[in-house]
């Protein structure tokens, strides 16, 4: 069985999808944020792979086709954006200023905390692009000389936590406006946060996918400036 797992191109992905489905079912049944299907799937898959001694490379033989779909799917985020275009135009000022302040806040928070905790320059620039989408964040981290693998990990964890805590954080800060909820989720937790925003509603989803692109561009421009601070 273990030996079979170590060579199968389908076993790993099947386990990922089964545990994702299980997570969705648990979430529906208990409606509790911790039962995040993505998180459950990642944890279960890692546990199974490690206990069966399957390497990530073997797993990725099959799983890379899931990642392959990411580019066309990101392209499709333009569809809800187009459908909500009128709403977006009407609120252009809120969108641009809201996302801009989020990006600045992200960079400042990372800077201040890195300084306080005495992180090295490499670790600091690794974390700078943590709030934006993996594809852009990897590019920024590489450009600035960070550890790209950690950047990817931190981006994914940020997304998952944003996805789980998003609704709760909106409640603490009393963010009721659907537009603002979407912007906050997309700016803080990129595409994984957007998945949450899509669940909340079409307006939230469209605003969130818009902010992925806007936040990504702002961060590309500002991260190199912030990198020179420490």
């Amino acid at each position, binding site marked *: 069985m273990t030996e079979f797992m170590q060579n199968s191109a389908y076993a790993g992905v099947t386990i*990922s*999808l089964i545990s994702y489905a299980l997570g969705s079912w648990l979430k529906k049944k208990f409606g509790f944020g911790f039962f995040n*299907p*993505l998180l459950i799937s990642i944890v279960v*898959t*890692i546990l199974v*792979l490690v206990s069966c001694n399957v390497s*990530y490379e073997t797993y990725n033989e099959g799983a890379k086709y899931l*990642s392959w*779909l*990411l*580019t*066309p799917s*990101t*392209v*499709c985020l*333009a*569809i*809800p954006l*187009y459908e909500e275009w009128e709403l977006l135009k009407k*609120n252009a*000022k*809120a969108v641009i200023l*809201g996302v801009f*302040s*989020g990006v600045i*806040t992200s960079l400042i*928070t990372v800077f201040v*905390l*890195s300084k306080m905790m005495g*992180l090295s320059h490499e*670790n600091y620039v690794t*974390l700078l692009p943590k709030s934006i*989408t993996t*594809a852009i964040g990897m590019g*920024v981290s590489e*450009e600035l000389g960070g550890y790209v693998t950690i950047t*990817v*990990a931190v981006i*994914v964890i*940020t*997304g998952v*936590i*944003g996805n789980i*805590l998003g609704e709760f*954080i909106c409640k*603490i*800060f009393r963010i009721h406006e659907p*537009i*603002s909820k979407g912007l*906050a989720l997309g700016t*803080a*937790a990129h*595409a*994984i946060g957007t*998945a949450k925003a899509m669940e909340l509603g079409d307006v939230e*989803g469209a605003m969130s996918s818009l*902010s992925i*692109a806007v936040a*990504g561009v702002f961060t590309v421009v500002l991260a190199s400036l912030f990198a020179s601070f420490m």
Partner: protein
Amino acid sequence: MKYLRQFLIILAVSLIGEILKAVLPLPIPASIYGMVLMFILLLTGVIKLGQVRETGRFLIEIMPVMFIPAGVGLMSSWNVLQPVLLPVSVITVITIFTVMGATGLISQTIIKMDGKESK
């Protein structure tokens, strides 16, 4: 056939995004070029909503699944992450709160102010 045709259009736009990334020297990924391009094509009516809608909706719906491989990749970057785990975790969690708070509250204030002005 409808879904295949829709998927073909989406892939073609992704391909052009990839070409733009290869040609332009900016650190912007192919998917973002593709997304902007798709948006422009929809806005100008070159692509009609009905030509991509169902397949697009489906892809967006199953999007979280596509992040599983990257997340599972944590198992291979674990040894690099482990020594800085505590500061990295603290920064990761706090940033989510500050960024969501700033973005949400500032945009909400602007929306409310604009709403009052127009009344």
